[in-house]
């Protein structure tokens, strides 16, 4: 089942990851290695534990059991704010940006946070190179016409794209995306999938997606979760051919 490239050192590795909320086990003993440079999609029906798994990988919660390794280094329980400097960035399932700032200011802020967190002295308008870099990132996600618009006035799809630009600000080796197309129109979804494919050519991307069809074409690898456990993993072809996966997805209706 394991494809050849996974034999190299994986960029991220989960070992027996488990999460309990009170008496409810959301995730149970999931061990997965994410190979460097590949686009891996985590899929599964509602309640499969995708979001929990994502939140553990991205450090939003500490796991109840198991460990997480980033490039061989144990990062279990590392505070959230250290992730950006490690080179791990994420986008949230529900759009999470600064609504009162312009698109450019949002990205600028994220860039500034990489080097100038406790500088109380230098006027920030002097960092022109940060503004230029922010503009570049906005252009990359297709928001070059909206530099100075307040984020709250942007369309939903644009806000999602902005969030990705913000995540890219730390030039992450690993980009984690939680349902990047949630709530998007078909046009927006197509544009977002194109963007993700482009991003994946330069860095490792792990994304969570509810709709299997969307990620089949663009992913190198798929991880299928069901009832909080690892159901299958492999290339899209291998997963598509897997009987259990077919049963789970067909049982849930046509996705």
């Amino acid at each position, binding site marked *: 089942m394991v494809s050849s490239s996974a034999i190299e050192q994986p960029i991220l590795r989960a070992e027996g990851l488990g999460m309990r909320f009170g008496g409810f086990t959301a995730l149970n003993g999931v061990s997965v290695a994410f190979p460097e440079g590949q686009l891996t999609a985590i899929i599964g029906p509602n309640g499969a534990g995708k979001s929990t798994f994502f939140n553990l990988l991205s450090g939003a919660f500490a796991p109840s059991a198991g460990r997480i390794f980033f490039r061989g280094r144990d990062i279990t329980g590392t505070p959230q*704010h250290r992730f*950006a*400097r490690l080179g791990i960035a994420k986008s*949230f399932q529900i759009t999470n940006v600064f609504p009162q700032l312009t698109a450019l200011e949002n990205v600028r802020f*994220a860039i500034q*946070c990489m080097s100038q*967190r406790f500088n*109380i002295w230098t*006027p920030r308008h002097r960092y022109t190179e940060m*503004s230029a870099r922010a503009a570049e990132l906005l252009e990359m996600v297709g928001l070059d016409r909206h530099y100075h618009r307040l984020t709250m006035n942007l369309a939903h799809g644009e806000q999602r794209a902005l969030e990705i630009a913000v995540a890219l600000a730390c030039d992450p080796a690993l980009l984690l995306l939680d349902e990047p197309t949630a709530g998007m129109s078909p046009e927006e979804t197509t544009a977002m999938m194109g963007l993700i494919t482009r991003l994946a050519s330069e860095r490792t991307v792990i994304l969570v997606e509810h709709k299997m069809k969307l990620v089949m074409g663009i992913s190198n690898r798929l991880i299928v979760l069901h009832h909080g456990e690892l159901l299958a993993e492999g290339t899209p072809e291998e997963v598509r051919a897997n009987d259990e996966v077919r049963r789970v997805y067909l049982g849930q209706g046509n996705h």
Partner: protein
Amino acid sequence: MNLANPQDELTVSGRRLAWLVSGMARHRVVAVLGFLLVFPFLLPYEALAVNILIYGLYALGFNMVFGYMGVLSFGHAAFFGLGSYATGIAIVHYGVPWLPALALGVILAGLGAAVIGGLAIRTRGIYFAMVTLALSQCVYYLVYQLEDLSGGENGLRGVDVYDLNIPGLDLSLIDPLTKYYFVFAFVALAVWLFSRILASPFGAVLEAIRENENRARACGIDVATSKWLAFVISGLFCGLAGALNAIHLTIVPIESLHYHTSGLAVMMALLGGMGTFFGPFVGALTFLMLEDVITVITVHWQLFVGGLFVFFILFFPRGIWGTLLHWMSR
């Protein structure tokens, strides 16, 4: 495409007086200081003007945490009071010259903020307000008990700095206008520093924490440490206000440390406009002027000020200055 980042506190996009608003925002230090420079000539007597300067500075320092970072502290009296007492005690008991005494006041207030902030920063919202309130009351009772040093209930008397002893200048604080400009010099320095901090990357961190703590954290911000640092800086400004107040009043009343003084900062910042640069001064001006005018008519002046406060919270939550800015830039 112009990528310059205007360091305005408002994003100015409208017509009408937007040019004025953006101009004031761009040159906020000049605008504030220009006003304060001519201010004593607009008032019937200078002592009130000095009060407004000092409490304006106090509310300004408080506003860093409250207005810009969005965290309500109810213990800032501790920093105002510690600044006052440290300066006062240094002058009265140890004969320290006024300038190092002022510095001592600022430093002790900063240390107080470091300790109180360090303990309170783990809590959020109303709990943060309550913990800071409780800790500041601890400071109050501690100073109250240290009667030999602090004068206890009667306050610390005899903080007499009349002659500034600046070589080449014959300045005496007995002249009210000289005293005003003496205090003004420190307030001017503080206002400039404050503006500089707001315009810095750390200033952006403060506002990011207020707008969206989770996003700030995902951007790599250590939210707890940043909050603590802002709290300490805020304490330094409030300490300077307290230290100046000791020299202004020539006594340090024990009420400086009382939670009533903490409440003053909240009221002044809210009344003037939280999160605006000039708001705290407008709030201090309104509050102290009303107190001054209404006490002539009735001893129940607080009833009127309280009524006005409720009126603004309900109908103009942006405060006086915030509402004005909003109207002008619409």
